[in-house]
């Protein structure tokens, strides 16, 4: 059971790193949403219960810290987790090009869903943000995703080691 509190700490630490350190390094120009890549990693490689809980926790912490509508990223991350989980049966997740394309697709899908909700909730249309924000973010996340997958793999091994030790 110790794995679950560890997952929460891991998720919170990652979101804190994302909204503070990475945001400062990117000078606030682009949002390096590495939590999205972790959700895809969880769908591809992790146990379904742990991956699902980790995805929801990441979304919950992200919503809390960035001020989105509470529960929005929780839902979006769980949906992307489910999409990744089922896609992992159909595609070769070890092929770098496919992984990059998948990450890019998920980043765009997430952006479309956020903007669709925004357009439904208000009459403000922000579809231009797909090109301005989500497209470059998707490209950058896709490029760094193979490296992030290696890092996540190592930290998962470390987490399992802590749990067993």
């Amino acid at each position, binding site marked *: 059971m110790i794995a679950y509190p560890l997952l929460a700490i891991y998720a919170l630490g990652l979101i804190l790193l994302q909204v*503070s350190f990475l945001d*400062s390094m990117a000078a606030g120009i682009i949002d390096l949403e590495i939590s999205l890549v972790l959700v895809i990693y969880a769908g591809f490689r992790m146990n379904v219960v742990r991956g699902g809980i980790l995805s929801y926790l990441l979304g919950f912490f992200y919503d*809390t810290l960035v*001020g989105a509508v*509470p529960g929005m990223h*929780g839902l979006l991350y769980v949906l992307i987790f*489910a999409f990744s989980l089922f896609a992992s049966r159909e595609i070769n997740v070890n092929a770098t090009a496919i992984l990059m394309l998948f990450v890019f697709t998920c980043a765009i899908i997430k952006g479309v869903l956020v903007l669709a909700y925004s357009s439904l909730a208000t009459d403000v249309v922000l579809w231009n943000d797909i090109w301005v924000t989500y497209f470059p973010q998707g490209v950058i996340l896709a490029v760094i995703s193979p490296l992030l997958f290696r890092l996540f793999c190592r930290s998962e091994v470390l987490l399992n080691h802590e749990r067993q030790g």
Partner: protein
Amino acid sequence: MLLTKKKLKLLVVVSLVSLSLSIFLYRIFRPFETSDLRKVIWEVVLPAEYLVKSSLSSLIDSWNRYVLLVGREDENQRLRKENVHLKDQLIGLTGQNREMQLETRRLHKLLGMNVPTNYAAITARVISRDKLPVSRNIVIDRGSEHGMKAGMPVVVEASLVGRITETSWNLSRVMLITDRLSRVDAVIQENRLPGILQGTSSADCILKYIPQNEEIKEGDAVFTSGLSVSFPKGLLLGRINRMGSHSNDLFREISVKPAVDLARLEEVTVLMPLAVSKK
């Protein structure tokens, strides 16, 4: 009957999606209700985020200055000589002192503002900003322990910048007037035309429900009308900076530039209704 591994996976995923969808729908109908868990995370993480960001920002500034100086030895020598002459004038104006002077000036402005009748003013520091393209919020270092409540107006000098939407014990989230969910009852100063100022999650807002045939000029000031109980009357919102006109539409498209640069807020004033502040 035992479930197969495949069915179990499906069951877990369906349960998680249903649960997260239920939470999301629940929160849509109660957007300004802050759970204790959310408050605890705020209290722990947001100050840490502020600390990390401010340290990093100083570090990046120092590094940038260092990089700029590399390879400029000759220029440096010349500047050193010049510096001797200017040194006396610069005493007391080191970077830190300058920063403090600017801060003092800003705080004086905040303290010197005319607080609307029936309101008490509380100054707060901005410690975090939202990163999502679809929202414009800030977090300030005053919370329910200081009397903050959802709905209280937040101003800089005599200009409205937003309202409090969520509070934890020592922090509050402020929705800026540029947030897409923000609506403020407004009036154009020149001709007293009422409208609704709506955020667009970009730098400007739009003023809605102004009829086509009304005469409006670019540069006209837009103030809070005081028609709703949320905001006191007469707070400056911004100035009209662009006007569109489609003959088929009943109303004009009017863009308003906020009076305050909302991307650079450092300190703000929260207007607390006196009935609340006395409790």
